[in-house]
C-alpha cells in the first residue's frame, strides 16, 4: 500500500532480488540499479526493512539460543568469532557423555561422530527422558552433515536447555537410502543442570 507522500512504486522488485542485494549476490550493475530504485521507492524500502528485520531477528534467535540447529563447522567458527561462548562435546557411536550448560554460556555444540562416507541423507532420531519418563520420539529429517569430518553438529536451543531439569537424551543417526533406514550409531547425553 502506498502511504501519503510516497511516489507510487514504478516496478515492484521481487523479494528474491532484494534478498540477493542484501547478501551481496547481485552483479555490480544490477546492484547499482536496485539501489537507485530503493532510494526512490519508499514501498520497496519498507519491504527491504522487513527482510533486514528478518535477517537480524534470525541472528538474534541464534545468539539467544532460541532455536535448535544442525549446522556446519564454519557456522560454529562464525559463532565463536562473533563472541558467543560455546561449550562443546564430542561423542562417537555407542558413546555417552555427561553434559551441562552454564548460565553464562550461549550454546552447546554436540559433535556427533559416525561413518558418513557414501551416505546421501541423514536423519536424527531423538528421545528425551526426564525422571525415567520418556517423551515422544522426535525425528529430524535430512539434516546437514559433513562426510569428510564424519560429524553431525547439533545445537540444542540453549534457552530451553537451561530451563530443563536433569534428563537423558538418546539420539540415533540414521542413513536414509533407497533401501530404507540404516543405523549409523546411538549416542547418549546425560544432562545435569548447573
Amino acid at each position, binding site marked *: 500500500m502506498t502511504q501519503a507522500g510516497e511516489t507510487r512504486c514504478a516496478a515492484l522488485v521481487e523479494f528474491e532480488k532484494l534478498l540477493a542485494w542484501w547478501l551481496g549476490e547481485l552483479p555490480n550493475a544490477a546492484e547499482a540499479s536496485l539501489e537507485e530504485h530503493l532510494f526512490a521507492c519508499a514501498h520497496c524500502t519498507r519491504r527491504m526493512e522487513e527482510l533486514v528485520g528478518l535477517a537480524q531477528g*534470525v541472528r538474534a534467535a541464534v545468539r539467544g539460543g532460541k532455536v535448535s540447529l544442525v549446522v556446519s563447522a564454519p557456522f560454529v567458527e562464525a559463532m565463536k568469532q562473533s563472541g558467543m561462548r560455546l561449550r562443546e562435546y564430542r561423542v562417537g557411536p555407542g558413546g555417552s557423555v555427561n553434559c551441562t550448560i552454564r548460565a553464562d554460556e550461549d550454546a552447546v555444540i554436540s559433535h556427533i561422530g559416525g561413518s558418513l562416507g557414501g551416505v546421501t541423507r541423514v536423519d536424527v532420531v531423538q528421545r528425551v527422558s526426564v525422571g525415567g519418563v520418556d517423551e515422544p520420539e522426535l525425528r529430524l529429517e535430512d539434516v546437514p552433515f559433513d562426510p569428510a569430518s564424519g560429524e553431525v553438529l547439533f545445537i540444542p536451543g540453549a534457552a530451553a536447555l537451561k530451563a530443563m531439569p536433569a534428563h537423558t537424551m538418546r539420539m540415533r543417526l540414521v542413513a536414509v537410502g533407497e533401501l530404507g533406514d540404516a543405523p549409523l550409531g546411538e549416542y547418549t547425553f546425560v544432562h545435569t543442570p548447573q
Partner: protein
Amino acid sequence: MPQDSPFAALDDGALARRVAAAGGSPDSAAETELYRRLAPRVRLYGLRHLRDRHAAADLVQQVLLMTLERLRAGGVREPERIASFVLGACRMTVLEMRRGTRRREALMEAWGDRTEAYEAPEPLVLDPDRLAGCLEALSERERSVVAASFFADKQADQVGAELGLKGGNVRVIRHRALARLRECMGGTP
C-alpha cells in the same frame, strides 16, 4: 505519515524543493519530514555496505545533515532528484569510511551536535518469540540454510559449500523457507 499532514501531497522531490526554497530561513517541518523519509533508505544502504548498525547510524546522520545543509545553501542542482543525490552521497561516504579517511570520531565532531531536531524512524524489530516459533516450524534443512545465510550474511554459494549443497539448491530452499517465515510473521507482499 497521517493523510492530513501538510506534506501528504508532496513527493520527495517536491519536499526537497520546499527545503531548498526556504534557503536561510530553514523550514524545519519540511526538513524533519524529508529526514524522516530518507533515513530508512540511508540506514539500509549503510547496513548492507558497512554491516554495522552503529556505522549505519553515523552514515544516516552525516549524509542527511549534509544533504539538508546543501539544500538550504542552494547546493543541490536538481532537488527533484534528491533520492539520487542522497544515494551518491552514501556511496561516496561509505567509500571514505572504508578507506578510513573519515573516522567515527571525526564524523561526530563534524555532525554530532546537530541532530536534536531530526529523528530517524526506529528500525523494524520483529517479535523475537514469534520468530523463534516460526523458525522452529521450518524443516531442519530450511532452518540450517536460513541460519547459515543470515547469521554471518553468507551468499548461496558459500552456504552451499558449507552444507554440501549446490548454490542453486540453497536458493530454492532459502526462497521456500523465507516465504514460510514471512507468512508465519505476517509479512508485506
